[in-house]
């Protein structure tokens, strides 16, 4: 019979003014498992914690029950204090008899006293049946791996290298730079794209810590936080790299609007990318131009705004307008998206250059007129309520960014998820760059369409997040918690009882369970690095072989029995 030391905290009258402590003392004295009971004025002050810790060690108590205030007020201070004084975490139980009892039932002291007795009994039962889950710690491979050498990938690589860490970059194409290589100037500062890229590319080529693997195609990704192994082929040679973390910066791809606005059917209807290529080659002829925004975006198939198409149109429209003699430029739009002060100023400049903006509605899009090449565009001007005909030599369609084709496959290999549109999804709105798998980060357009400078910021942010992992030589599984502080434990399988039905594998939101063949039957095994002790696997396990030791079903059953 475990001997339990119980501390009842008076909280200077806050608790025992409602709850009758003598009644509790009488009740607890009849419980054989309670070895000693002490009523104290407070438990959250430094001196109280030392006194309590001394008494616990003195009486060699198996378990300690603290009946005081809730974890969210000062209960956790007491618990953490005791842990600091050397009392193991699993030996301590906390019962909230202040917020949860004396304060909330202030006017019913008899009911509150009975509730306090029951809560303490539940606490004792919980302590008696609570078990400790194992923990493992893993040596961390100090190197980093970045997939994709676009602006985000390069920024991440350079900032990681700056902290002295070895970095490998896997790039699908043969040269770094991503989409920046395809455009002439970037918004909002109109800086030349190649000038922007140049310092990063030089760093990648010169810095010995960074190795670039061009034309690489990933075969498989194994391992967990701190120890990833990536098999890939680069320039025809198979290769494999170990790394502590992975930063996914695979970017996105342009949407080709085949079938929209007669694109591909008649000449002179081009996309922004083709316009950018003409700027790069310097071979644009400054004729009349009409920009059409939200081509294939903010509609049923892709119900999202791709953030960058409006600023790109403003950039290119301004560039055209600045030519001598500047051609007439129209932008047909469904609302110009230019958030922030720089882009607002950008929008004002375009206006001042004489670019004309016409608003149209999604239901009545502009129509391209002309036989083999475009000669005019008909558009219903929603603001003035009239249909206008605009002669033009060139129509430029602004199309959104869409996820790469192999996002889902890569997500499957990485063990992370893609959101409903196909971009890699973050685990929780307040942890934007982290994913379901600790140690795998997402940044740049792979996560959501962004401009190049935003992509670079996210790259550096992801790098700094990664450093917090790579700097530790060892990582304990219990520290990889989705909640502040340590995890509450890990799931544990009883191999004799497990029937191998696979329910837990399907139910686990973190893919921490997988089935292994043992003789002629399957057994589920828990990967503690991934398991977050959320317990989704416990109710779906038909015979209770999957349990969280700190919250096992016997403990819950006993607590329910003593609840009233």
């Amino acid at each position: 019979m475990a001997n339990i030391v119980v501390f009842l905290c008076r909280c200077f009258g806050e608790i025992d003014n409602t709850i009758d402590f003598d009644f509790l003392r009488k009740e607890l004295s009849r419980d054989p498992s309670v070895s000693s009971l002490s009523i104290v004025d407070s438990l959250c002050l430094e001196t109280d914690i030392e006194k309590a810790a001394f008494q616990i060690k003195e009486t060699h108590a198996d378990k300690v029950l603290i009946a005081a205030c809730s974890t969210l007020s000062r209960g956790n201070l007491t618990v953490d204090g005791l842990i600091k004084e050397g009392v193991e975490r699993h030996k301590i139980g906390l019962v909230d008899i202040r917020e949860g009892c004396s304060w909330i039932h202030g006017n019913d002291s008899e009911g509150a006293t009975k509730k306090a007795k029951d809560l303490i009994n539940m606490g004792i039962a919980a302590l008696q049946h609570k078990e400790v889950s194992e923990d493992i710690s893993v040596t961390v491979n100090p190197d980093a791996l970045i997939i994709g050498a676009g602006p985000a990938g390069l920024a991440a690589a350079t900032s990681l290298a700056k902290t002295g860490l070895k970095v490998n970059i896997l790039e699908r194409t043969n040269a770094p730079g991503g989409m920046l290589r395809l455009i002439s100037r970037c918004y909002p500062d109109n800086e030349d794209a190649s000038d922007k890229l140049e310092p990063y590319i030089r760093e990648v080529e010169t810095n010995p810590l960074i190795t670039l693997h061009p034309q690489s195609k990933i075969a498989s990704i194994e391992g967990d936080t701190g120890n990833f192994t990536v098999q890939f082929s680069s320039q025809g040679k198979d290769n494999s790299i170990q790394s502590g973390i992975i930063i996914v910066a695979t970017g996105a791809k342009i949407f080709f609007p085949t079938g929209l606005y007669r694109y591909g059917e008649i000449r002179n209807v081009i996309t922004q990318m083709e316009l950018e290529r003409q700027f790069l080659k310097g071979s644009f002829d400054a004729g009349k131009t009409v920009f059409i925004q939200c081509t294939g975006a903010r509609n049923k198939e892709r119900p999202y705004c791709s953030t960058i198409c409006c600023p790109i149109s403003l950039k290119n429209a301004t560039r055209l307008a600045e030519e001598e003699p500047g051609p007439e430029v129209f932008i047909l739009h469904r609302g110009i998206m230019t958030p922030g002060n720089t882009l607002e100023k950008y929008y004002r400049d375009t206006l001042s250059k004489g670019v004309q903006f016409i608003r149209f509605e999604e239901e009545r899009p502009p129509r391209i007129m002309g036989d083999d090449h475009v000669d005019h565009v008909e558009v219903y001007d929603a603001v003035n309520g009239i249909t206008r005909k605009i002669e033009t030599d060139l129509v430029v369609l602004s199309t959104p960014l869409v996820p790469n084709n192999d996002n889902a496959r890569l997500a499957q290999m990485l063990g992370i998820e893609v959101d409903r549109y196909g971009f890699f999804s973050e685990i929780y709105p307040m942890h934007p760059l982290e994913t379901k798998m600790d140690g795998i980060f997402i940044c740049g357009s792979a996560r959501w369409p962004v401009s190049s400078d935003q992509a670079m910021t996210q790259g550096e942010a992801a790098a700094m997040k990664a450093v917090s992992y790579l700097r530790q030589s060892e990582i304990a599984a219990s520290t990889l918690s989705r909640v502040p502080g340590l995890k509450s434990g890990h799931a544990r399988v009883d191999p004799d009882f497990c029937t191998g039905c696979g329910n837990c594998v399907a139910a686990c939101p973190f893919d921490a369970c997988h089935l292994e063949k043992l003789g002629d039957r399957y057994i589920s095994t828990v990967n503690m690095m991934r398991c977050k002790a959320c317990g989704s696997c416990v109710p779906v396990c038909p015979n209770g072989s999957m349990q969280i030791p700190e919250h096992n079903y016997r403990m819950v059953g006993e607590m329910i029995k003593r609840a009233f």
Partner: protein
Amino acid sequence: MNEPRILVFACRWCGLIGADAAGKKRISLPARFRVIPVECAALVETDAILRALAGGIDGVAILGCHIGGCRYNNANQTAIKRMELLKDLLDTTGIGSNRLLFSFGTAHEDYQFEEIIKNFFDELAVLSPLDPWLAPFGVIS
């Protein structure tokens, strides 16, 4: 029926915060409910709920996080689906699904917690007791 008895499974990251806030606000509620903190609403087993109902507890409430707001990558959605099926079973046998209350994302604030628990008390007070269904042979210790 005399004062009904309620067991509350409160998720540590929202339900418990609501209960704690209600406590700090000194909102007075009948002393006939007990709270068992759980890591996530997904951890609550239907067997525990049925054990509670069989043990003479009149109502069980599960307070979880918003849909999409669960820290454990939407673990609470499996809980919602399971509770709906359990409601079906309780309706089938006539025990009545109103003995089971699950609120996802509506117990963060103190006034919300108070409102939920008060309504649940009123609702249960109307129901007939479950004694024919208690463990028939023994006095439950």
